[in-house]
């Protein structure tokens, strides 16, 4: 247990520090964040045509209201927490890779719901937007990470017991 938590913390801090490095931001995080904005707008446009994506900003053309997807809003940190937990947990590598892929999709899926809900909440009421943005959705995203992690653990195959030497008569 202690080994798992220590490994998790080391991986978490290392991956998070790596994420903050300028080259990683330029090559991965910023393009990814713009991709999240573009996918959010594509989804919104399925039922609302008056929306535009400009880089990491989503704008309502009629009201002018806009939200910028910044660090902490792109789901990268939540994905890193899940990634560190799955890497630290003793499991076969192909299960890890499947878990990381499914977990990434689950975290990003709920993050898109978060971005779109905040975009409309902000147009309705700024106070509720702030409340949901700063507190509620942060907790819900982490709950999502926990759910995915525990489902993944449930789906792991039973640990193999050590091969026993044949008994001699």
């Amino acid at each position, binding site marked *: 247990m202690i080994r*798992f938590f220590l490994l998790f913390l080391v991986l978490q801090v290392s991956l*998070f520090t790596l994420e903050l490095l300028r080259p990683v931001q330029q090559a991965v995080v910023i393009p990814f964040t713009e991709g999240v904005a573009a996918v959010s707008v594509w989804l919104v446009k399925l039922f609302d045509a008056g929306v535009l994506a400009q880089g990491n900003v989503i704008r309502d053309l009629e009201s002018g209201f806009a939200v910028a997807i910044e660090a902490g809003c792109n789901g990268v940190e939540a994905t890193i927490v899940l990634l560190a937990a799955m890497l630290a947990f003793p499991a076969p590598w192909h299960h890890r890779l499947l878990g990381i892929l499914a977990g990434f999709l689950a975290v990003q899926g709920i993050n898109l719901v978060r971005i779109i809900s905040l975009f409309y909440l902000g147009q309705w009421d700024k106070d509720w937007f702030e409340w949901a943005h700063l507190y509620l959705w942060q*907790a819900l995203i982490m709950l999502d990470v926990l759910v995915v992690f525990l489902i993944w653990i449930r789906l792991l195959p039973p640990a193999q017991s050590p091969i026993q030497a044949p008994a001699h008569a």
Partner: protein
Amino acid sequence: MRSPLSRFFLRVLLWLPLCFGGWFLFAILMSTPVAWLSGLALPGLFPELFSAVARDGYLLDIITRFDAPAALTQGRAGELAFGVNPMIYGYGIPLFTALVLATAEEEGFHHGWIWTGGMLLLVLVQGFGVTLEALKVVLFGLGPEVAARAGFSPLQRELVALGYQLGTLVLPAMTPVVLWLGGYRRFVARLAPSFERTGP
């Protein structure tokens, strides 16, 4: 028939609005230990930068040792101060409480010390967040003159930036989940039996 895992998370989702409501209702009370902690940490560790931390409802006013610009004080002497919202670092409290209450529905509330210990750690996380935000504002938000007077080396500035990001984006979210996983290992192993392979 729902699995124990989905039943558990349904309970968490039902507790969550109540815990968030209570947490925000008592926001002034909840920010008291954070104000006390950051009031100790900021003037105690950086006496040349900060003179005090004052309360303004649930918000905190960080009072620095730097003079406020004369244009703002209409010629009178005044110290530069800025506000910090400690609740930004505290949403782990309702999340952790909802996890504990949903666990207690099945296990009974006989592990009260886990909740108490968790709350203490979550308050420390809040104190850390407020302290690092205050340092970040002084080093990066009040202009080059104030930053230069703070006297931090480039490496120290980088460490403050990293600590601030860690204290904002990772610790408040991760801590309640880690506390719950660590505090209720046997219960977690009932929800997801392979969790036992992490050992005792």
